[in-house]
């Protein structure tokens, strides 16, 4: 048994499996923190109370896994200090800083397991900030979590497995899917098929989505180049180019995405290092092969490297075994080896996915100057290009300092990788050389009022203000 304080951030597939394994092996002082009101993460996000759809309606082919995961979490929730609705906004001096229903709190930890998930990877195109454009993940959440479609005539555009999955789910739910605009050519998928066969079930599921969509009359365009989301106050159409031919589709909503980016800011604040992964064309957390990233800090799931829900469950358990080993508790070599083998197959499949859906980063060089690059601060491609030419920033953090992209509310979550791609392209340098935006606290906006609530630590400040009031009253 161990009474060391273990904090797990996130209660999706990775966080759930980590907590379950730790509990089963005798850890008795676990705190689980989740920004969401319930467990499940984004992929197995639960419906709010009062919704009546059955699991197979919400999660489709993944209903069994979703239900199993929810059950696991519900079974353990009473045995840990579970704090839903709590945002973790900083990690400092081996303390996790949260903001939840009771305000700001500091939670010291001995060991920390980070399962922070991911968000869609976006390539900005003209018009991408118009009302009606959502990420693919956002479109999926509207359906899963709210039983809503993002519009009456929806186009899904971009690249990645989510593109076809979300389109299929919308179709099944009775929404009108106008088209799927896949920026990757069919030939890319053929070339990747051997790798995709590492997980035949997933590959055939993808083929089924395409077949079903076609059968329902949804237009599938592959190898397209997205030109613009049309409209002034909201989406009215999307234009694109295929085989040199310009096309135009009327629609009132667009789901846009090009794979996922891991959510790494908290791990960085906890002392983790990142490394550039050429295959995935993105930064991931550098760990020791078992999820260790810093002294007493462990990572799992999409938040450490994109792998999907199954990988999240596997790496969540893997991180737990690493914690147990470091605590000197018994470890199951058999489970560890099962996980390793499963992750190997998953890794081959993931490479296949990347090869099937490469990020069309080469578009950025031709993106018009007036296109918004940073949607928080309204910084355009032209302004960023001007800063690159005039002030010659050596890395993306410097570029951010000069022109403000990535300085807004999202802290560069959405545009950080675009900034790096553009800086690399404009200066002819390799992508990994221009760096990535550093994580800074708070990782999401925090109310001053919430922060001020913690000022009782500085009683003197309160006293000072009260004394000053008294002086004024007496005067």
């Amino acid at each position: 048994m161990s009474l060391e304080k273990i904090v797990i951030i996130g209660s999706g597939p990775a966080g759930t499996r980590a907590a379950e394994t730790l509990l089963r092996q005798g850890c008795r002082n676990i705190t689980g923190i989740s920004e969401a009101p319930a467990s499940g993460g984004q992929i197995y996000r639960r419906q709010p109370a009062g919704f009546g759809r059955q699991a197979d309606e919400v999660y489709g082919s993944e209903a069994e896994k979703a239900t199993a995961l929810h059950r696991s979490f519900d079974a353990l929730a009473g045995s840990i200090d579970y704090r839903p609705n709590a945002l973790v906004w900083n990690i400092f001096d081996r303390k996790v800083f949260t903001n939840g229903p009771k305000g700001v709190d500091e939670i010291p930890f001995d060991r920390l397991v980070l399962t922070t998930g991911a968000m869609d990877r976006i390539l900005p195109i003209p018009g991408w900030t118009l009302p009606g454009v959502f990420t693919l993940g956002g479109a999926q959440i509207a359906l899963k979590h709210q039983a809503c479609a993002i519009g009456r005539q929806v186009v899904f555009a971009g690249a990645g497995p989510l593109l076809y999955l979300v389109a299929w789910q919308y179709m099944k739910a009775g929404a009108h899917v106008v088209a799927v605009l896949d920026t990757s050519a069919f030939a890319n998928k053929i070339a990747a098929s051997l790798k995709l066969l590492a997980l035949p079930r997933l590959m055939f599921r993808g083929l089924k989505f395409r077949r079903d969509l076609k059968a329902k009359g949804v237009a599938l365009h592959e190898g397209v180049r997205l030109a613009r989301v049309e409209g002034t106050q909201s989406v009215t159409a999307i234009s694109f180019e295929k085989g040199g031919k310009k096309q135009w589709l009327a629609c009132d909503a667009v789901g846009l995405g090009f794979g996922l980016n891991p959510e790494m800011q908290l791990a960085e604040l906890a002392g983790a290092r990142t490394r550039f992964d050429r295959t995935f064309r993105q930064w991931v957390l550098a760990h020791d092969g078992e999820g260790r990233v810093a002294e007493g800090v462990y990572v799992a799931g999409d938040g450490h490297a994109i792998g999907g829900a199954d990988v999240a469950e596997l790496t969540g358990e893997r991180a737990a075994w690493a914690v147990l080993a470091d605590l000197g508790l018994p470890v199951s070599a058999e489970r560890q080896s099962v996980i390793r083998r499963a992750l190997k197959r998953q890794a081959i499949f993931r490479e296949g996915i990347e090869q099937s859906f490469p990020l069309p980063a080469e578009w950025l060089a031709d993106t018009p100057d007036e296109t918004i690059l940073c949607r928080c601060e309204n910084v355009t491609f032209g302004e960023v290009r001007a800063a690159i030419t005039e002030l010659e920033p050596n890395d993306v953090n410097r570029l951010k300092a000069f022109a403000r992209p990535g300085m807004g509310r999202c802290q560069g979550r959405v545009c950080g990788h675009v900034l790096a791609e553009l800086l690399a392209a404009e200066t002819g340098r390799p992508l990994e050389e221009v760096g990535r935006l550093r994580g800074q606290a708070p990782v999401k906006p925090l109310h001053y009022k919430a922060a001020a609530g913690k000022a009782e630590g500085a009683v003197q400040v309160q006293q000072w203000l009260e004394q000053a009031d008294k002086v004024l009253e007496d005067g």
Partner: protein
Amino acid sequence: MAETTETDIAIIGGGIAGVASAYHLALAGKRVTVLEKGTVGAQASGVNFGGLRTNGRAMAELSLSLRAREIWRKLKDLIGHDCETEFTGHVEICDREDHLAAVEKWAPEANAFGVGAEMLSGAAVAKRFPWIGRRMLGGIYVATDGAANPRLVTPVFARAVRKLGVTIREQEPVTSLGYHNGRFEIATGKGAVIRSPILVNAAGAWGNRIAQHFGEDYPLDVMAPQMVVSEPFARQVTATVDYPVNGRFFYARQIGRGNLLFGRGPGRADLDTSRASYVPQNVFDASRIAIDILPMLKGRTFLRTWSGVEGKTPDSLPILGPSPVRDGLIHAFGFSGHGFQLGPATGAVVADLILRGKTATDISGFSPRRFKTS
């Protein structure tokens, strides 16, 4: 084989003091080389509050600060970019008798220098700055003070300086430093050797490490500004505001785009890693003060906190002047959190000292000799 470069003047430190020194020296036709261990303006010069304040300064700093104010006014003409400079005024507000008394004593003395400070009654503070959420006993206002974007100033200065022919060597830390046959010899991390009869030590928080090469040792501590920035909102806060709570100033300003910036320390910094931390307790305390003084923040959110590494002397005044032990060595470091506004004039003074051996600016309070250095 080491690459050896001869230059008229070598400057260690690519912060605002170093780069502005290079500017004034290059204008006089000197060959100048600036050595920067990282990138220009990345430390205290780049991460500070951006305040351009004469208000409330120590008497010893006023001569230099007023010279700086003149340079800031002409910034665009000098370096081709205004770096978001604006002169919207600075007010220090008082709700304590002792603070008000101190300010009332300061004002006439400062105005004798030409600061142009205006004493305000409590009612005048409320009328002139209706966005201040607390009643005050009074305040002191300097209309010609302002602010600039510190992330831009030093890099833009550097660009102008390069156009004048100055060599700025970035990512080149000093690895050894000596003096032979009337020349300083500086070896860098890239294997280069710079030889120069004159050396300017503008190394900021690392200034004492440079001084130590010549047997000098200054009581230089390290400090870390603690900055917080809000989400953007329609501009209400029209002047920079300074307010002391418990012996530490809370200072705030809102930029034209709408973000409100405030600071209050102390933070944590490390010279060896060049890293500074924002200490979370500061945002709790400062937010408590902020929603009192700037009540429009009450429902709003902040987006980011940051810090940087800055050198601090025991009297919070810079070490600026010729080295007491080594001819040809000029110190310009330890600005203790007030160096941004002073930067352009610091460069002018360094140039005066090198070119003419004296300066009309009163820098007597900054003499390196005020400390026992060995």
